């Protein structure tokens, strides 16, 4: 059974200076969910989050929170709290006063506030930091304090806008695990914004892939990774081979002049399609043993695996394998029918993958 619907962004549109940033965006967020808005920079993620937080009014559409229309409710009256990208701590207050800020406004007792601060600092692994100045904390510590400051108010939803964006890789990974732990301990809804697909896949229950103000696909991380609905999603989530193909009939697709077996049906006959094959799904065999022959044109060692480029049929195939072949080696290419993903060609420009040159 699915959890109760908590937030509904209802056909939200927003323009800045005549430029449409969100176009009829409709999104449902469920109670206790870790939902991530994922997309390239400038696609409208922050705008969506800021509309949720009440910092921006949508031009059209409504924001429904727990059954109530809060579209015009100011941020200070909303039962959600935000963790901003960076530098949002109050610089002239110490850590304790930062965390107490919301509680004091709410008129909580000193004893209650003291307890809460202690609890929150423990939760973010910064016990004893009460009297420190935020200016003397590292980036990671600052973000933990920002999280502590938000959660002491016991919001029903925590909004996080690329909170780990300014941190280095190692710290970012540690913080990802901490955020998941926090979410489980607090039992509240997280709405998370990032442009980092790995981060999104690691942490989320639900990933919403956005591009140019549209939702491209929404689903579990597994769904998004294994069954991208269009070339944009496929390209954005990890590296992919996206090749023009023709669906000859059910279960037969022609790529680069060669007919491959696949498992998709219902596309009709001789229909142009996009074919997506993940680099780890391309199997290299001896020449003549695969569906088509090619030559290794590039190889780098990535630690866990080799990443190779194989030129075959006039296309540079991206291939990942634990076995490497030197440049110039002739190879055969084979792909399991299950690993061939067939997608309809985009109907509008908005679905096109950005960064894919035509």
């Amino acid at each position: 059974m699915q959890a109760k619907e908590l937030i509904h962004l209802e056909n939200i549109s927003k323009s800045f200076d005549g430029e449409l940033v969100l176009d009829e965006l409709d999104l449902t967020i469920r109670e206790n969910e870790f939902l991530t808005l994922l997309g390239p920079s400038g696609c409208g993620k922050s705008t969506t989050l800021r509309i949720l937080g009440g910092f921006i009014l949508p031009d059209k559409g409504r924001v429904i929170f727990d059954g109530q229309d809060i579209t015009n409710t100011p941020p200070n009256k909303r039962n959600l709290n935000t963790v901003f990208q960076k530098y949002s701590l109050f610089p002239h207050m110490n850590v304790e006063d930062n965390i107490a800020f919301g509680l004091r406004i709410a008129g909580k007792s000193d004893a209650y506030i003291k307890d809460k601060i202690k609890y929150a600092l423990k939760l973010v692994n910064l016990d004893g930091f009460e009297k420190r100045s935020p200016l003397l904390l590292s980036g990671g510590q600052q973000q933990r304090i920002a999280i502590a400051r938000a959660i002491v108010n016991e919001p029903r939803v925590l909004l996080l806008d690329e909170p780990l964006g300014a941190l280095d890789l190692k710290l970012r990974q540690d913080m990802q695990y901490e955020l998941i732990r926090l979410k489980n301990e607090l039992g509240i809804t997280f709405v998370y914004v990032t442009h980092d697909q790995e981060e999104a896949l690691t942490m989320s229950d639900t990933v919403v892939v956005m591009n140019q103000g549209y939702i491209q696909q929404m689903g579990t991380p597994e769904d998004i990774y294994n069954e991208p609905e269009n070339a944009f999603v496929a390209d954005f989530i990890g590296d992919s081979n996206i090749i023009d193909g023709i669906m000859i009939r059910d279960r037969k697709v022609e790529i680069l002049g060669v007919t491959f077996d696949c498992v998709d049906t219902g596309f009709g006959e001789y229909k142009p399609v996009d074919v997506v094959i993940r680099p780890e799904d391309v199997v290299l065999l001896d020449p003549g043993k695969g569906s088509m022959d090619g030559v290794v044109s590039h190889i780098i060692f990535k630690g866990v695996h080799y990443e190779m480029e194989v030129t075959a049929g006039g296309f540079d195939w991206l291939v990942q394998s634990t076995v490497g072949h030197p440049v110039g080696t002739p190879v055969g290419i084979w792909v399991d029918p299950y690993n061939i993903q067939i997608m309809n060609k985009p109907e509008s420009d908005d679905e096109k993958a950005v960064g894919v040159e035509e």
Partner: protein
Amino acid sequence: MVSRGQKFLERFYIGFVFFLLYAPILILIVCSFNASKARTVWGGFTFNWYVSLAQNEEVMAAVRTSLVLTFSAALIATILGTLACIGMTVMKKNSQSAIMSVTNIPMLNADIVTGIAIMLLFVRFAGLGMMSMLAAHITLGVPYVILNVMPKLKQTNRSAYEAALDLGATPTYAFRKIVLPDIMPGVLSGFLLAFTISLDDFVITYFTKGPGINTISTMIYQQVRRGINPEMYALSTILFLVILVFLWIVNRIQNDEPQAAEAQAKGKVAA
């Protein structure tokens, strides 16, 4: 390599320029301690002119007028200027720079033109007096406040303000608790500059003052016209020193800022 000779020349040149700049004021200060009334004769050191200054009712009235006028004008200019800055931050870029240029006009405009303009306005609609002087001095001060507050306001980060709203603060409370402490150095130096400008203004005050009212500067002018009066040298010296102290404080406020920011940056690296 700069040779010793060159270094000496450099020092000497700078010293000479400063000497030329401040020689007149130096002479003024010396004269204010001269027991002889003649400007060219040294009659011995005395504090007499300062003492008689304090006993001169006319002078004391002018000092009081100046202080009241200058303080209220600077205060009102600071409030107006700061509010204007806040208004400007939410404007579009174009309107913002348009307004910035307009606010610079009173600063660049010839004082005499501003003075006559305000005089005409008040003569036509209200009559000259304390109010017209106050209005003129506020006009004088606002651009300096804006010039000092605006950069500070642009530096403050919006996230902190928004975080305050997010945590339940009303916009006014968030401004008072979060934004104001951040821009306070700008507000303070704006206030002090407005105060200084207003205190040492003569031209605009001269045109907008009502009959029988004098500020320190119009008072000095009147007295000096009547003839040599070393009391006025003493008064001028005090005025100079007061303004010097104010400018020094403004400088301190503005210089402390980058150092504080540096210390912050260092702290971040260390942590």
